[in-house]
């Protein structure tokens, strides 16, 4: 689950009303809900403009200097001098864009280089780069699991996973979030000769909780299923080499596909799939969201390549990010906030709000006090919770985390939540 503002990750059919004026009538309820929130006078949480970005952790937002605590820029690579320099060089040498698909005129040396960097980073045989992480999930899932195949997936999966399932026309069987037994029951009932794909995420971005991958992948393998793990929120940070929860759980050799993104720890834009499957390269010809779109600009793949290679040696930054996560979690808990997980499990700390109204008020108090967090609201959230999602950065200093806690205390008291 993730960025859905007014819709859940799992796609839904909106019903129009009788006597509809036009095709937009089905959005009337959403328009009214949004208007209701704005009429209550809060600053629009979904219309924030960053006028100036000062660093991975600071920006001028709506005219105020603001600490950024909701950008998924986990490793703070966006202003790394080597990364920025690589991008400038590629822009000068290769131009602003490729104007073509990867399979035609859109594969430059930089695309090959970033795929090599990914193979080295994950120590895997194959790497395929897509224009976004959304397209990586859409493409790989819809291509490998087709009509008659079964996909077993967590109910809290990201929108790109749901959309990939729908596009491929496979039988889709969801199970309760992180419930190993529910997953096993479903796998057991699938016809033995059917193709099976289990889809999991390392870190779930709503609550920042981690999946029990060791147990789940063992179950998937017992039933002969292939396994795809989306490690969007763990790359560069979790696991000894930053390969994700699959690495920290010791099961990286048992997964068939890892999906990732350049839009979080890597600090640019793009998506990828890495795999050891001997036939993996055929994906480049049969995967429509790979073929029928233009490839990433040369400057983007150059920044991604440099960033990924630097992340391989990021153990000090990883250690500092863990400290930040632990400090923020403990501090918020001590202040009396209700959090998404008992212990910090990732670089996401979700603060649970009593309801949408108070959540929106708290978000506004934080932004006015100079702190940006991510507001997540029903229906995009599990159990219809309203959450303030905080994502930490390795570039947040210890003092900054202290400052963040002060802003939370001041705002929480003003709104009456603590």
């Amino acid at each position, binding site marked *: 689950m993730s960025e859905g503002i007014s819709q859940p990750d*799992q796609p839904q059919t909106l019903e129009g009303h009788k006597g509809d004026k036009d095709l937009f009538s089905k959005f009337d309820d959403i328009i009214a809900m949004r208007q209701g929130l704005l009429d209550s006078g809060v600053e629009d949480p979904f219309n924030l403009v960053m006028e100036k970005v000062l660093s991975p952790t600071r920006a001028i937002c709506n005219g105020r200097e603001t600490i950024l605590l909701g950008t998924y820029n986990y490793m703070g690579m966006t202003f790394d001098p080597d990364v920025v320099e690589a991008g400038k060089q590629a822009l000068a040498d290769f131009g602003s864009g490729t104007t073509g698909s990867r399979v035609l005129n859109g594969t430059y040396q930089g695309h090959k280089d970033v795929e090599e960097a990914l193979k080295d980073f994950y120590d895997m045989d194959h790497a395929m780069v897509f224009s976004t992480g959304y397209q990586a999930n859409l493409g790989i899932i819809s291509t490998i699991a087709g009509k008659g195949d079964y996909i077993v997936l967590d*109910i809290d999966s990201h929108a790109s996973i749901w959309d990939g399932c729908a596009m491929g026309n496979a039988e889709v069987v969801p*199970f309760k979030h992180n419930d190993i037994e*529910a997953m096993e029951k479903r796998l057991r009932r699938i016809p033995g000769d059917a193709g099976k794909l289990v889809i999991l995420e390392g870190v779930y971005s709503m609550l920042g909780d981690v999946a029990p991958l060791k147990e789940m992948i063992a179950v998937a393998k017992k039933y002969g299923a292939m396994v795809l793990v989306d490690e969007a929120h763990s790359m560069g940070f979790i696991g000894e080499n930053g390969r994700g929860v699959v690495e920290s759980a010791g099961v990286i050799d048992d997964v068939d596909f890892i999906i990732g993104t350049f839009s979080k720890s890597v600090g640019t834009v793009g998506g990828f799939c890495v795999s050891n499957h001997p036939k993996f390269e055929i994906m480049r010809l049969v995967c429509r969201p790979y073929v029928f779109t233009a490839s990433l600009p040369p400057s983007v793949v150059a920044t991604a390549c440099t960033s990924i290679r630097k992340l391989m040696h990021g153990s000090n930054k990883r250690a500092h990010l863990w400290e930040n996560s632990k400090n923020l979690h403990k501090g918020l808990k001590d202040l009396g906030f209700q959090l998404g997980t008992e212990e910090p499990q990732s670089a996401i700390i979700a603060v649970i709000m009593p309801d949408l109204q108070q959540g929106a008020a708290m978000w506004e108090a934080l932004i006015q006090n100079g702190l940006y967090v991510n507001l997540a609201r029903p229906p995009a959230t599990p159990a219809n919770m309203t959450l303030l999602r905080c994502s930490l950065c390795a570039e947040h200093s210890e003092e900054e985390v202290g400052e963040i806690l002060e802003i939370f205390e001041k705002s929480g008291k003003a709104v009456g939540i603590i």
Partner: protein
Amino acid sequence: MDRAEVDAKIREIAEPFNKKGVTITEDTSFQNDLEFDSLTVMDFVAEIEDEFDIIISMNQQAEIEKYGQLVDAVTKMQAD
């Protein structure tokens, strides 16, 4: 199990999910009458699946709008 037995069993399972005590007939709609949201649907479907040891994929769920259609589908699946 015949259709009547399946019907009785599903009614029993539906009971705790029917928060407003709507009278369930063959034509009762899960979305409009019972107002099930996606999480409720998942829990409800999981209980039926466990009871009858079947799978009702989301693709199959998409075809089922009304209570009677669910009883028909489950009756058929558990007989196969």
